[in-house]
């Protein structure tokens, strides 16, 4: 099996002419009876078709941030919030969560806990039913997404009879079928083997490219993110401490150490061997081979 294929991490996707689809400004979140802010003033933009990795230690605020993007925090999980989150023009913090469903799809890390319907078809159709999509269109969209996600023909199976990996894909299908502008995934590769992890990211890349969906992935697998993500956001103790392309972010080894974030092994190797003056450190496998060949 070859090295995980991926785009050259040096080429960050350039800003889309239609402008950002997600705008977060000075977002502050504090949970009731907490001593410190869970998020202490976060600002960033997301453009259509971007795949962004969100990294940081457990407790750094990644889950909180992902839950703010469709208003779960503060509407369903009480918290004091300040600042703004705007998705496709809608105020995510104040618009009822169920109305944000058409704009933001969210997939939690435990796929089984999100499945509740009698059949796979109904599970996927749930989002469309709530949007009052006409029957014929619903059936077509459900069939289409199941083919894309690799669960073709499973419309009538009980969701919980699927394997773990299939359930994960089903949860993803449920979020994608409404064609959201923004897709948020909380540790989608948790507990998956290398091949399955690559498949998930292949799927995400296809969705980003074909549908123009902006994707935020909370992940610990930095090697995978370095290969596949357009940008990386690093959270540390509720603050955004680094934003940029994987090369920019993971290449700053000392900043990553300060944030408790591991850099890809290849970057660590290059850093320890001493970066060339003015040069950047490799973050992907292929870059590293080239870098080491030149370094001599």
């Amino acid at each position, binding site marked *: *099996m070859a*090295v995980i294929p991926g785009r050259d991490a040096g080429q960050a996707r350039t800003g889309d002419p239609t402008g950002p689809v997600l705008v977060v400004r000075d977002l502050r979140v504090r949970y009731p009876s907490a001593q410190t802010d869970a998020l202490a003033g976060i600002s960033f933009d997301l453009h259509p078709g971007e795949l962004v990795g969100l990294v940081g230690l457990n407790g750094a605020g990644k889950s909180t941030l992902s839950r703010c993007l469709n208003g779960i925090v503060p509407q369903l999980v009480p918290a004091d919030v300040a600042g703004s989150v705007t998705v496709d023009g809608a105020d995510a913090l104040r618009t009822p969560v169920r109305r944000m469903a058409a704009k933001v799809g969210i997939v939690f890390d435990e796929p089984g806990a999100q499945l509740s319907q009698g059949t796979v078809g109904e599970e996927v159709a749930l989002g469309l039913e709530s949007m009052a999509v006409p029957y014929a269109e619903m059936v077509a969209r459900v069939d289409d997404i199941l083919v894309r996600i690799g669960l073709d023909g499973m419309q009538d199976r009980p969701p919980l009879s699927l394997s773990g990996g299939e359930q994960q894909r089903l949860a993803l299908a449920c979020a994608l079928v409404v064609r959201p502008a923004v897709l948020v995934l909380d*540790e989608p590769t948790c507990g998956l083997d*290398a*091949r399955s992890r690559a498949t998930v990211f292949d799927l995400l890349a296809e969705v980003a490219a074909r549908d123009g969906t902006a994707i935020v992935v909370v992940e610990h697998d930095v090697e995978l993110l370095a290969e596949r993500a357009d940008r990386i956001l690093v959270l540390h103790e509720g603050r955004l401490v680094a934003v940029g392309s994987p090369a920019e972010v993971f290449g700053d080894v000392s900043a990553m150490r300060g944030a*408790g974030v591991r850099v890809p*092994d*290849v970057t660590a*190797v290059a850093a320890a061997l001493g970066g060339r003056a003015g040069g950047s450190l490799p973050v992907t496998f292929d870059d590293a081979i080239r870098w080491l060949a030149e370094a*001599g």
Partner: protein
Amino acid sequence: MTGAGPVLVLREVRYRYPRGVVAVDGITLDVVAGDVVGIAGANGAGKSTLARLLNGLLRPLAGTVTVGGLDTRRHEVHELARTVGLVFQDPRAQLFARTVVEELSFGPRNLGLPDPEVRERVARVVARLRLEDVLAVSPFELPAPRRRLVALASVLAMEPRVLVLDEPTTGQDHHATAAVAGIVRDLRADGMTVVCISHDMRLLAAVSDRIVVMAAGRIVAVGAPRTVFADAGTLGAAGILAPQVTRLGLALPQRHGRPAVLGVEELVGELAAARSSGEGSP
């Protein structure tokens, strides 16, 4: 506990789930006392089934599983728990007590040990895993990494000869993963046998004396990590990848023919030494 033979012996073990799924299809494996064995494989390869065969939760339909000399088919799970401690992937499946101390005492009490002995064992595991500050806290109030440690501690408190860890670092950040690796190394230094099932190949590379690769219920590779990780073909067919630094080391032309590296420091050391002695060349 002098080495009088391997502490875990599996011979031609087969297991099939009631609905007909063949999970383990002829596994033969010896684990020597004091070894750390890493089990790798794709989802569905049979790793978790193997874990449950090791402590008697599942009994082999064919073949034998012998732990510390005991045949798992002839002993109850609670008897085998003295010898084999299995830590489940999700700590929520185990935690139930009002305080951490109660939680840690559960295992030893179940073994029928007298109270003073229970207290001593709990104290030992508390010291090892540095849980002094949360003794009176409810395990449910702890952050996720600490909860995992409590679950691990509760099994260690029974002081088994073999510890089986089923995916100990799923969803953990890099500090917590490093902590688990450190604990496994400490345990090994104290003579414990550890079987570690994981998708985290870096973890396995860091702690294992031997790696076992499973695919479709069979063992497709077993041996020293350097040997197993160098076999890209077998790993690929099994659906897994060696750690990135290992693959890098194998791909560098200047290292052609050299053994696989298992960690960043090792590769850096080699390359730096090669550079300073003028060996490396594009």
